[in-house]
């Protein structure tokens, strides 16, 4: 027992828990803004206005068509050249998750809203609701329920994506694991624990989502 407590499997944990805080912070705040962005862009993709449609489509395709690793480097190293001021690592990471997930969430929102029967919109309009009211009270609540499983899936993807930010030395979980084996050379133990930590979040999430999905099916 004492040997186990002294082992690298245990001694890496304080590092990983510190990293976990940043992993969750970046994922949570990033997805919060990503959802707002995704909702706006997703609805824009359904717009009859050509300019709005084209602009939102360019955004979605540009972000889905480039690797998130390039995106974080662009935001952290590229943008400051243009803007003339630096962006701190955490902020850059949050922005990267927000704009990247925002593009995928836009597609989730678009698909869910589009999937609602046209008759719902007509029924709302025919009692005299405005377009906005119909969206808010009738279409969105129904669409949102259909978004929950894919949004949960996006959460898992974005959570894992934060590990890429180790390249700009953000102190998230993978980076902290690397720090540990950089000092101790216990790469096997450290990385095993890193992976188990990710699984400890992603597996329950996936199981929960499957349950939600089954409930929405009936």
């Amino acid at each position, binding site marked *: 027992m004492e040997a186990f407590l002294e082992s690298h499997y245990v001694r890496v944990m304080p590092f990983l828990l510190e990293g976990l805080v940043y992993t969750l912070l970046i994922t949570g705040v990033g997805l919060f803004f990503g959802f707002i962005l995704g909702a706006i862009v997703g609805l824009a993709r359904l717009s009859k206005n050509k300019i709005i449609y084209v602009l939102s489509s360019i955004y979605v395709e540009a972000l889905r068509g480039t690797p998130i690793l390039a995106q974080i480097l662009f935001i952290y190293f590229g943008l400051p050249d243009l803007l003339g001021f630096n962006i701190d690592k955490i902020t850059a990471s949050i922005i990267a998750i927000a704009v990247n997930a925002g593009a995928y969430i836009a597609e989730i929102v678009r698909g869910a809203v589009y999937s609602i*029967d046209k*008759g*719902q919109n*007509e*029924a*709302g*309009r*025919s*009692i*005299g*609701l*405005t377009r906005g*009211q119909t969206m808010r*009270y*009738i279409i969105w*609540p*129904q669409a949102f*329920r259909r978004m929950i499983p894919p949004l949960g899936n996006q959460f898992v993807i974005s959570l894992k994506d934060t590990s890429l930010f180790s390249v700009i030395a953000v102190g998230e979980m993978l980076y902290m694991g690397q720090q540990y084996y950089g000092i101790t050379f216990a790469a096997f133990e450290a990385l095993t624990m890193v992976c188990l930590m990710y699984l400890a979040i992603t597996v329950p999430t996936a199981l929960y989502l499957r349950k939600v999905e089954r409930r929405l099916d009936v």
Partner: protein
Amino acid sequence: MMITVKDLHKSFGKNEVLKGIDLEVKEQEVVCVIGPSGSGKSTLLRCLNLLEEVTSGDVFIENDNLTDKKVNINEIRSRVGMVFQHFNLFPHMTVLENITLGPIKIKGVKKDDAIKAAMPLLEKVGLEDKAEMYPESLSGGQKQRVAIARSLAMEPKIMLFDEPTSALDPELVGDVLAVMKNLAKEGMTMVVVTHEMGFAREMGDRVIFMDEGIIMEEDTPDVIFGNPTNPRTKEFLSKVL
């Protein structure tokens, strides 16, 4: 006049579906629209509350011209109730919430007052015990009666019905027709697209036969069903009666 339609044309792309419709509906009148599938009955009805944009011509609801860009279409729609073939109830709301949504959000009625006003409507359609149910647990006939109550909650002056019973099992049709008959007797102005010839004959003040995007014949039910003049009307009726 409650409804005045003047030389209404409606095209979907190159497909002209309504080819010049003229129609007047008086207060308290019940007008039934019959005709073969694809003749433009639904399209005409949907033009009456601008669910379809009209291509040319005029549609007046009372004195408001719907094709005038300045009219408040939402306000006019709240004066014109519409009942759909597939009910289109809001599945995430209870029966009561379906009915009170319009009054609360559009008319600014307080929730309690909206509920008080909704209960007599539910009684009218025979569903006072279903107020807290969700649409999924109702039969088709019950859903359609809720849909009627939902429209009535906005206190419309005109009710449009687009084949309100054709998605129903035969044994459920009667309850919905009974509600519609009561409405007609109370003096509601109604335009009813229907395949229920019995209803048209009994309740219609006027029957309109549509074919290929025009009104082929219109007259009292006695004439249309007893002694139609247009050969197309005869042919259609011989198929459906």
